[in-house]
């Protein structure tokens, strides 16, 4: 073989080797990109699943597709507001770590009960819990679900108190207010922090009605607006009409005292 031919073969071999290296690298990059894409898709799915506990699927999809939007919708929702009685005094009498432990146990148990009754915890406000029924998905039985949840929360509270007592810790007491009405559900907040929330007078009324549990010595108080949609098997006792801050007329309220078993 002549030196020219040898040189040509060497060049061709070098080119082939270069091409092979280039193809291998390309393939490696492609596979790395594919792995990253798979990982990203999986993360996105996990994220979507996680977010579905806090906001309706449709809202999540619109956020994923278009970025954060001013998404809002008028809805009829049953609102449950729960607040610990005498919590301020308790917070001054126990160690901070113990207090946090007691609170977390309380939130954990109450959240589970609310979820089991098809509600979702919208937010914790100090020692208070704001839960919504019918906000994430349509729910024609939202009032019954909220009432059942409230009764189950009081039962859970008694169980938690037995556990606290065994540990030598002070017992807790919770007042619950329920109201049904319309409001706006949507993503609210600043650019840095947005949350799915239900805003409007309905939430305020539920919180105010919860306050009345102390003065009426009732564990659970429901408004007339919610009571009229309740199953007749719930036992309610009419209470004197109450004036509530932010509402012009006095509102009819009832103590919810239990329900007949099915």
């Amino acid at each position: 073989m002549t030196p020219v031919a040898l040189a040509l073969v060497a060049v061709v071999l070098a080119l082939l080797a270069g091409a092979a290296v280039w193809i291998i690298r390309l393939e490696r990059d492609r596979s790395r990109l594919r792995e990253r894409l798979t990982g990203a898709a999986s993360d996105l799915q996990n994220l979507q699943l996680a977010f579905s506990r806090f906001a309706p699927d449709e809202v999540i999809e619109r956020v994923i597709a278009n970025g954060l939007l001013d998404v809002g919708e008028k809805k009829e929702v049953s609102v449950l507001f729960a607040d610990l009685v005498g919590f301020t005094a308790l917070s001054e009498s126990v160690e901070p770590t113990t207090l946090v432990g007691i609170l977390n146990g309380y939130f954990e148990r109450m959240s589970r009960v609310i979820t089991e009754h098809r509600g979702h915890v919208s937010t914790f406000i100090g020692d208070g819990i704001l839960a919504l029924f019918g906000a994430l998905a349509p729910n024609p039985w939202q009032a019954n679900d909220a009432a059942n949840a409230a009764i189950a929360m009081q039962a859970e509270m008694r169980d938690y108190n037995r556990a606290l007592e065994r540990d030598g810790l002070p017992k807790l007491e919770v007042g619950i207010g329920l109201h049904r009405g319309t409001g706006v559900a949507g993503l609210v907040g600043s650019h840095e922090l947005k949350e799915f929330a239900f805003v409007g007078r309905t939430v305020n009324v539920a919180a105010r009605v919860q306050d009345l549990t102390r003065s009426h010595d009732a564990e659970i108080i429901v408004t007339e607006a919610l009571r009229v949609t309740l199953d007749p098997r719930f036992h309610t006792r009419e209470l004197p009409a109450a004036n509530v801050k932010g509402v012009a007329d006095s509102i009819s309220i009832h103590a919810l005292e239990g329900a007949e078993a099915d």
Partner: protein
Amino acid sequence: MTVISEIEWDACLIEPRRDDEYERRYRQETGRPASGVRYVAGVPWLAEALIDWSVEIERRVVVDAELADLVGLVVSQDNSCRYCFATMRFFLIVLGVPDAKIRRLEEQLLSVDFSPEQRAALDFARRVSRSDPLPTPADLQTLRTHGYSDLEVAELVAVVGIHLFFNRLSTLIAMPPQPMESMTDRWYVRFVRPILALRLRNVRQYTKPVHLEPGESDGPYAHVIRGLDGLPLAGVLRRSVDEMLASTLLTRRCKLLVLAVIARAMGCQRSEDEATGLLSTDGLDRAEIDRILSHLSSPLLDPIEKLAIPFARETVWYQPMQIQRRGREVMETLSREQFLELVGVAAVGNVLCRASIAERTLA
């Protein structure tokens, strides 16, 4: 590994039972292994439905087969049905779709890498599948602007309906997904794949529009069935609804109440009116029907209805593990066959409400 295979899934609620006749027919008519039939053996109408509806998975009139497969994946993923998702995946591989392409399809379900027409169809499929709230005529209009004919829209609804039926059936009894999920990794699959593919291709075919026979466009839920006219599923649904209501494992009243509760949960007034109309004709007082639907309780309900009605409500939107645990509680009181019939009625009820949008495609 996709997130769907990590979804919590209970142990199967139903003891499989051999039924040689149904298994032979299933294999013959669908070209698929018949192990699934064993889970519904003992409830003839449901076994028949399983065969008929399985055939419809592969039979298309106008919608592109690849799009129909995508819709199946979307609906199964959206309903968190591990069994159906794994099954769809396996049969796509058998049909020669490369594993990498399927993985890409799984990924694309959340990405925007579809043609505008495909994207519109998949978005519509998700709207029908979720139905919270129910799709509206505006959703149909969106499809029409992307060039879909009324028959194509109706067929998309039908494809979603078929997969919803199997999603409900598989999830509510917790059909074991693991064998199907690991099937593609088994060494012998590559040897039997050509035979399976041949059988599947024989079943997978386009057919001319099939119109309802004179007697088929009347009867319960005629509005949904007429909306699907032109598609083989219309006749299949007619037969399933009639045989389901005629079965005596649960009372007709119990089944109609289940259908009415599902309709109420989804806000499907048309289907609720249909069920309550039948209940009223059968002699149940209107005031009592209203009470049951308003509160899911009544002193008039018998012990089985008291279990079936709240369970029906749970079958509309759920997390698999939650509904499977609930099913286990219900099964403590019901016989295997009664529970299966309840699951079947719930599956059909969910399809009827979601497919009622097809009525809007009628001129």
